[in-house]
């Protein structure tokens, strides 16, 4: 599952970057910040990226996952800090589905 999620994250970032100018490309790296002072993204960009990731999850895994739910918003450490933390959060949510 980890490899599948890594790939769908790469695909989502590629899709997201396709509409952006060359100097605004999001680095496909787990340490790439999504929020905070050092990110390239504004709030609408983050919405677009999350939608792209959710759609990749649906297209690849046939699972509808809502990432920005109340739980994500109430975590003491936001899952949207970096691409890596978002990937970890997705894996965690998917494993909970399997357990449940």
């Amino acid at each position, binding site marked *: 599952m980890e490899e599948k999620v890594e790939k769908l994250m790469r695909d989502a970032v590629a899709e997201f970057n396709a509409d952006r100018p060359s100097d605004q490309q999001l680095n496909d790296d787990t340490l790439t910040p999504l929020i905070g002072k050092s990110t390239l993204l504004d709030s*609408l960009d983050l919405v*677009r990226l999350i*939608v792209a990731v959710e*759609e990749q999850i*649906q297209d690849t895994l046939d699972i*509808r996952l809502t990432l920005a739910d109340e739980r994500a918003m109430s975590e003491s450490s936001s899952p949207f800090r970096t691409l890596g933390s978002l990937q970890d959060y997705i894996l965690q949510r998917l494993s909970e589905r399997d357990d449940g």
Partner: protein
Amino acid sequence: MAEPRVILVTGARKGIGNSLARHYAGLGDRVIGCSRKPADEYENYRHLCLDVCDETAVGELFSEIKSTHGRIDALINNAGIAAMNHALLTPLDTARRILDTNVIGTFLFAREAARLMMKNGGGRIVNFTTVATPLRLEGEAIYASSKAAVENLTRILAREFGEMGITVNAIGPSPVRTDLVRNVPEEKLQSLIDRQAVKRFAETADITNVVDFFLRPESAMITGQVVYLGGV
């Protein structure tokens, strides 16, 4: 010739939704309609059965639109229910059902449509309100309140979706002779029409005219607007 538009109409089995679906299918657009009960299909029109508040079913509908058409150009968020009653006599279940269909249903379809529209550089969302909201009609406390919520939803979604090239507007029809007003006493309808600047029942063509305007490519600057019929 321009490519046919892909238009989704909710509550398309009868009444205004049915007229709008037939109008756009007749123009050559690809129309997908939905309602709780089945309906006849015809050229350029496909019908699906679902409850507009069922998130899973709505998600599946949009997945199908995405795989079949790859896009959606316009959403006509027409599905709605009304129940006329004095507030003191309105069952809570009825109040919840009206809010669910009219507010949650409208929101859910707008959210899913916008996700698809943003990938194609934009689209048009048309919501449905009513003159009962600005007229503060007695006997329609929950219905008019649900549509007040739809109006605010329209204005805020217009702002949130504006940068994505998606316009969000609402039409507020004055009384039309459909099932929605079937059980309203004639004198009540007449007193409502007497409060309009144009004192007659609206026809479905009056509604189609406003929706056509919202859908036109030239209407890209028209968003967050609520247009009432009849001069209310």
